[in-house]
């Protein structure tokens, strides 16, 4: 499918090309990825339940990444960066797992 192909192409290009991320943003890359994964899983679950909307997908991806990065950045400013980062990862992780379970139910009816 063209969607999966797009994702794979993105991964391969990212691995080979290694676009230089500005050094300021480097520490926020892991949290951005967790946020992106959350949006991805949410989108896939919506697709399987036939309620997918591409506008919602784009907005959820962008807002997740931005808000997660913002929370961790503010946390760094006030000195609780690692704790806030843990909190963000915990919440996003719970959402990812919940969506993954729903996806598993929809795919395998099990």
């Amino acid at each position, binding site marked *: 499918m063209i*969607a999966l192909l797009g*994702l794979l192409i993105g991964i391969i290009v*990212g691995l080979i090309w290694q*676009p230089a991320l500005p050094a300021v943003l480097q520490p926020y*890359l892991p949290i951005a990825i967790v946020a992106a994964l959350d949006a991805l899983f*949410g989108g896939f679950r919506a697709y399987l339940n036939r309620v997918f909307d591409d506008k*919602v997908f784009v907005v959820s991806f962008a807002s997740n990444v931005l808000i997660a990065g913002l929370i961790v950045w503010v946390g760094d400013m006030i000195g609780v960066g690692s704790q806030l980062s843990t909190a963000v990862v915990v919440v996003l992780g719970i*959402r990812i797992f919940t969506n993954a379970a729903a996806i598993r139910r929809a795919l395998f009816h099990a």
Partner: protein
Amino acid sequence: MAGLHSTSSEAPRRPDESMDLLNTVFKQALDPSYGDETKPRPDGRVKLRSGKSVVILILCGLLLGLALGNTQRGASNAALEREQLIGHIKAAEQKQDELHERVRTLTKENAALEASAAGLSPADQARLAELSMSTGMVAVTGPALRITVDDGADASVKGSRVVDVDLRYAVNGLRLAGAEAIAINGHRLSPRTAIRGAGDAITVDYRSLSRPYTILAIGDRRHLESGFQASAGGRWWKTLQENYGLHLEIADAGTVTLPADPGLSVSKAKPLKK
């Protein structure tokens, strides 16, 4: 999150109301903007192929690929640094060995010069020879006993590794039994040689040793063996062998030559002026 408090004023309070955060996270795992997932729409799948979605998916893949590449490169950098550090350590140890050799050569030359300068009386010469053998100043040769010690075979048993205390007990036991010169893994012991533990390794004379540990002791072999077994060191090692599974082997080493201790020096002792 707007509708959360409106229900509580109409219905009796739910017992798990204070757990709303977790409940919300679970129930709203699928972004509510997608709509109710029990009411599927006819176009609820087609839109995945739209340009917007594909762009976002490519972006997502880029992020993942970037992070993957970063982590791989970071790991290889760390391994490279480790290799370099190991190289530095090896070079430093080699330099130290070379310097030790030089010290030994110079000490021999000094002894030769002293003897030929006739500054000492024959009695003093004899005393000097005797002392330099027992303190480790010169290399010695003679019949020796070899004691090989090693960790227990089962590494999970607590206390089954040889530590510096065990080596000290063994060496002291040998001294009590009359050993005239002792070396561990080729390092000659002097009265000031430290047998210590540093982290996981045992260091003798500030050099790290790795197992198995070979203790060579020059002396009367029979007296050495029986004296060692009867000493506190021998008893300590008997306990270690029986209760923790450590290995100890006593063997006849024939005639061996033990090198001088290159680090021999004094810090507080001063020569007595006659």
